[in-house]
């Protein structure tokens, strides 16, 4: 174990065995080999310490110290049902996949789209080529990743899923991924895993929401450790929208790796409003030329919240374009971290990469650590990056007040205006409005102290 890691605490290492025992019958299925491998690799690797450059500003002790239960499947409260139903309404509930504590709930889900299939890996024939493909991808990822949370997720994932979009199928209405968390008397670790294969010239849009129930013993915490792998095929498009509104004691580590084939488009936006600690690990690998990648982020925090966005974009091929913009408003004693790496390899001529991070601090006690990094090995490229961290402009404030807006109205307008460029990147109007609405509500709670 390197000096950049700490040993996996025993209350974590025990979890795999506990899951294994509860799997009855599932443990001789092919996927279980990956759980085992994930667990073994994790034990060897350990968890990251703050000596690790990528975790310098994000201490996860709070996450590691908590003792979690592995959620059981099939239980959901009446309150949970109501919450899920109301989230479904956002898209008329036509296509929605529901997860309670990270476990897929078939009976609350529906997906009736021609050419789109949701497959539980456990349901696939053991010698089917689809299963082989998927297992190979996951195996490859957990073997080569330096991200221990992907290994943790794989070792604890009860019901891995595949969303398969057939060649040429274009779906405009967003497919909802509804994550709901509830617990009464113990802390929980959720480990949802989803592989998305968008075949050649297909298009889908996803709306992922994370929400936790507030009625619980208030010492209990939810730790959701998500892993998603998205394969964007030739000339295909995936648009991924995420809104996170967990309880203020909960943790989210969201791991997403996307890879893009020739002429493909990947768009991702994350709006992080809730949780005690959020860490988004977003990686995009460009496998071929002429791709278009967009990564957007909004964060709005107060109190003791900590929101960390880590992105890695690997420009490995020529004629690819990327645009990355993260913006946040921090109040109270909250902290934000942005660590965005863009690697432009020697082969990636004619790359056009833009990266920007801007933060508005509302309070003197809030803090932002921003590290945009551009590593360029090609000579014929157009790349720019930058970061700003600032306070509210008193000239702007005075101008607005001189028109009769009070402190609160003016402040709200400034904060929303600050985030506007990121909102406006959302093409789908109802999603854009939804994100704006949620962000505005959150902004109203962000003050100086």
């Amino acid at each position, binding site marked *: 174990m390197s000096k950049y890691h700490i040993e996996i605490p025993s209350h974590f290492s025990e979890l795999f065995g506990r899951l294994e025992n509860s799997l009855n019958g599932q443990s001789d299925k092919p996927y279980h080999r990956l759980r085992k491998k994930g667990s073994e690799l994790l034990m060897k690797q350990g968890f990251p310490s703050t000596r690790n450059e990528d975790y310098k500003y994000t201490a996860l002790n709070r996450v590691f110290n908590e003792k979690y239960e592995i959620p059981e499947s099939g239980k959901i409260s009446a309150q949970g049902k109501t919450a899920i139903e109301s989230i479904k309404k956002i898209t008329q509930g036509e296509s929605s996949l529901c997860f309670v504590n990270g476990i897929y709930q078939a009976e609350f889900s529906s997906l009736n789209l021609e050419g789109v299939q949701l497959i539980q890996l456990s349901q696939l024939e053991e010698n089917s080529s689809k299963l082989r493909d998927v297992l190979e991808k996951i195996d490859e990822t957990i073997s080569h990743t330096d991200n221990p949370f992907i290994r943790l997720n794989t070792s604890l994932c009860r019901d891995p899923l595949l969303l398969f979009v057939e060649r040429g199928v274009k779906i405009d209405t967003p497919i909802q991924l509804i994550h709901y968390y509830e617990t009464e008397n113990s802390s929980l670790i959720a480990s949802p895993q989803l592989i998305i294969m968008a075949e050649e010239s297909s298009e889908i849009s996803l709306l992922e929401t994370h929400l936790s129930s507030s009625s619980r013993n208030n010492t209990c915490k939810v730790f959701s450790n998500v892993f998603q792998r998205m394969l964007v095929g030739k000339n295909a498009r995936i648009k991924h929208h995420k809104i996170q509104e967990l309880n203020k004691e909960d943790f989210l580590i969201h791991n997403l790796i996307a890879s893009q084939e020739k002429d493909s488009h990947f768009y991702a936006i994350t709006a992080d409003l809730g949780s005690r600690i959020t860490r988004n690990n977003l990686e995009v690998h460009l496998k071929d030329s002429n791709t278009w990648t967009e990564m957007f982020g909004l964060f709005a925090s107060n109190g003791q919240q900590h929101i960390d966005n880590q992105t890695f974009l690997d420009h490995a091929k020529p004629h690819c374009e990327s645009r990355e913009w993260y913006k946040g408003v921090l109040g109270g004693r909250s902290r934000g971290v942005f660590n965005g790496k863009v690697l432009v390899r020697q082969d990636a001529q004619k790359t056009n990469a833009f990266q920007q991070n801007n933060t508005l601090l509302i309070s003197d006690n809030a803090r932002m650590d921003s590290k945009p990094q551009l590593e360029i090995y090609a000579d014929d490229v157009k790349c720019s990056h930058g970061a700003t961290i600032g306070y509210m402009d008193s000239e702007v404030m*005075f*101008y607005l*007040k*001189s028109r*009769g*807006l009070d402190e609160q*109205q003016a402040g709200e307008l400034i904060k929303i*205006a600050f985030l506007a460029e990121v909102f406006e990147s959302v093409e789908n109007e109802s999603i854009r409005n939804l994100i704006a609405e949620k962000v505005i509500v959150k902004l109203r709670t962000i003050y100086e102290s």
Partner: protein
Amino acid sequence: MLKIKDLRVSVEDTEILKGVNLEIKPGEVHAIMGPNGSGKSTLGFVLAGKDDYEVTSGSIEYMGQDLLELDPDERAREGIFLGFQYPVEIPGVSNSNFLKMIINSIRKARGQEELDALQMLKLLKEKIAALSMDVSMLKRSLNDGFSGGEKKRNEILQMAVLEPKLAVLDETDSGLDIDALKVVSDGVNSMRSSDRGFLVITHYQRLLNYIVPDYVHVLIDGKIVKSGDKSLALELEERGYDWIKPEGSTVPA
């Protein structure tokens, strides 16, 4: 409606206004002229309540109350409007949303019903047409990338919708082309009424041909050193400021 008495104002320990006295009655138009840096904008900002400016002595009474007690937004709701010499650009705030917001918030403050979307649109269209502005200006971000003249027209548009009791217009004429000067002046003139006062800050007598003032004051080095009627502006245009010796100045004439 406005009584300024022996007003002294400092910015970062430098005294800028050094005893200003001025009274404006309802229906009057006062013009203030004076060299660069003499404190004209400072006076405007102090009336609007900008907090970088420290009032060290003197008083400002507005409609029978102590103006200095009020916050900038309260002053605006009480009917004070400042047209900025340099309007602030605010990217991300749409001009139309901003106008709607300020209209309804001022109406609310006055106990009037808020306007619905349709009434709002009608009002904005009407005011915009009166100022020969293009409706496309509404869609843009507030003052963001506006030309100098567009910003000034936008200030007047805001004044028109807010219907203030006392409007302070700080160099609203600079940056305007000849046609725009006429349009903006017409806009101001159409708002002249027996219960509304204006304080017009300008460098150019030309504006005062359009907006004819009742009084003209000369502000030099933080003091009003001369007051007169509109003919004073003509005299200033001809002779400059040199002939007026600031009161208490030690420089020989």
